[in-house]
């Protein structure tokens, strides 16, 4: 089957009209018309949050947010990229913190000004219930905030739209680290294995493996027991 000739649509990049193939993402549309991107682009697969974009669709007054690498252009779309959000990130020593509401109050007092308007949730391209995790933080429920915010890629669109000037994604980062460091139950097996390695339990066997030639290793490898 021959590659079908693409239908073209008109998009407005920073207000200026360009013709691009239908089905393009915002990133590929920008490149199609001749931009060599340096900012507002990153992993190109929806994991890094570098390509936050604000756009408006034809006939609609609402400003929407999306990731440029994941959002398909529509005819008449008006696009403006936001490569950087000048949000504050307080400095802390994770070893000195306690996983409770006072820590949230100390570093992110603005969280408590949340007016529960849900604008952040609507702005999130990751479908995260942003307002819900902010509410959890207000209650000091670090575990729930960490869980709800887990898929955050820190694109910054929530913070840009927030009327209470909350930097949701940085507060989420703190909650996640507090959870991982203090609230998650620790693995005894892991500690035991670290001890065993330190004591040199595996050294002899590893010494032996390191001296083996390819043939010996191969025999051992293909005959090893597989328990999955």
């Amino acid at each position: 089957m021959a590659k079908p000739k693409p239908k073209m649509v008109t998009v407005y990049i920073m207000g200026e009209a360009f013709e691009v193939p239908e089905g393009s993402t915002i990133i590929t549309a920008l490149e199609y018309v001749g931009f060599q991107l340096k900012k507002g682009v990153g992993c190109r697969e929806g994991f890094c949050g570098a390509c936050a974009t604000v756009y408006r669709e034809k006939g609609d007054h609402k400003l929407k947010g999306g990731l440029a690498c994941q959002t398909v252009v529509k005819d008449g779309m008006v696009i403006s990229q936001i490569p950087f959000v000048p949000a504050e990130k307080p400095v802390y020593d994770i070893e000195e913190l306690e996983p409770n509401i006072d820590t949230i109050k100390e570093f992110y007092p603005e969280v408590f000004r949340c007016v529960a308007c849900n604008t952040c949730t609507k702005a999130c391209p990751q479908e995260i219930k942003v307002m819900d995790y902010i509410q959890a933080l207000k209650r000091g429920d670090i575990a729930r905030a960490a869980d709800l915010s887990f898929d955050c890629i820190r694109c910054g669109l929530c913070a840009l739209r927030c009327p209470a000037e909350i930097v949701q994604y940085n507060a989420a980062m703190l909650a996640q680290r507090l959870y991982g460091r203090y609230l998650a139950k620790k693995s005894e097996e892991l500690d035991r294995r670290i001890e065993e390695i330190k004591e040199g339990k595996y050294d002899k066997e590893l010494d032996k493996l390191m001296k083996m030639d390819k043939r010996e290793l191969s025999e051992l490898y293909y005959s090893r027991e597989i328990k999955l």
Partner: protein
Amino acid sequence: MYPDYMLESIKKVEETRPKRIELAKLKGTQIFPRMTEEEREEILRKFHPDYKETAKRELRVGVNKGEKVTKEVAELLESYARINPDDFDLTEWDYDTDVLVVGAGSAGLSASIIAAQNGMNVLLVTKLRLGDSNSMMAQGGIQAADQPDDSPVLHYLDVIGGGHFDNKPELVRALVTDGPDAIKWLEELGVMFDKNPDGSMMVAPGGGTCRKRMHSARDYTGAAICRVLRDEVYNNPDKIKYVEYTAIVELIKDDSGQVVGAIGYHLETKKYCVIRAKAVIIATGGFGRLHIQGFETTNHYGATADGLVIAYRAGANLLYMDSVQYHPTGAVFPQQILGFLCTEKLRSLGAQPVNKDGELFVYPLEPRDVEAAAFIRECTERGKGVYTPYDRVGIWLDTPLIDILNGEGTVAKKFPAMARQFRRFDIDITRYPILVYPTLHYQNGGIEINDRAETSLPGLYVAGEASGGVHGRNRLMGNSQLDLIVFGRRAGFYAAEHIKSGVKIGRMSLEHVKEYEKEVEALGVDRSHIAPIILPNYIPDHVRAKQKTAEYFGTLL
């Protein structure tokens, strides 16, 4: 959503599904015979892209001259510098630091944190933003032998067998024995791993592993790790300074042959800077954006092997640059996500690869090169692939099995990224299979290091994908995430040790660049071949033809 003719093939997948479910319930992942050593060798020889006659050629410059390497790598290395060394006055510098770390993925971030903890002043330089890296995009997991039925010895065997026994033994040992401690370190920094109610780690099998050893953080494992490391770097502003949007384009050596700094280039202001350092750690990642053999890639926009180029020019030797990893499951449909990663963990948790008639044809968890070769055979020699409207071919990965075998909600809980990726294009992966084909994923080889992350050049350290030797000629799932942490930390630590033992910086020089260029010139290479590339260029030809005064520094073609 899929067009009608593809749905016809999906019907066949649905028809064979009940029998395959029975098989999986009976045999777990063992639903198809694993290949023997001979079978593996044969399928690789016949179908793996590395084994094509045209895949490699002899490298004609530098310390590895005469060795066969991947053709695109040879083109990249046989290139001129972006700068004229004579334009630089190296008796003055813009930055003076103990350790210069180049690249801000998980290896560079780990190295920075550890070097700082060991009393060093660190300058962390990246050509995009902190954390912009392949590390951030890793989905499936990180290996470490911490389970009671597992051991570093078994991990060692898996790593070296998967790598065709070409791995450097001391590096494999470092990888597997540091593994559990690396996980502990990450957790203490606040990484949220998937855990069982008793606090033990939730683990899954991976391709080529003999035990369940894959630790995960949903299917955002790389992001969960990398964002914590980045946050920790932000938390150390006194010890770690960072500079973004600045590419390192050459290393600086002194008259004793030590690496003592680098030249940086700011992408937007186009200003160059001179950086003086007592040690340099390269953590620049791999080469996915070279699109070797025209393959799509899972890699970050910045994966252009810059570190490889500058280290090689400075005289560091390379290992296994004849070997490329194609991840078996890159997305083929829809067109917008062509080549994107579909994590191996999907197969770990029961998704089965099947052909257009819904038939099983391979054990789902062979090492990556073998699995990829089997997919290619199915689509080429056997003609059992499914074509997309854009003339791309792939085989089905039967993802609805995951919820069927592990309980409803498993996909939602363990694969939020995957489910979201396809949902954005109206495909529900709990109801429909996804179409996949091998995609360019990982640079198996790189700059040779030892277990202290040292290169053949004093003062130069390498960690992560840019290094060579850890994974031999084929890396297993979850070992790159571990590699980043293990060798990132080692690089930071040993660079600090090296500096503490007393480093005297002599007269700084770019003479090695001139010498290297003489070799390139003698080959008659065209002056338009410039590296490092820094960023790929995806502007279509008809547009580029009109950009008559634009600079396409480093464009390969």
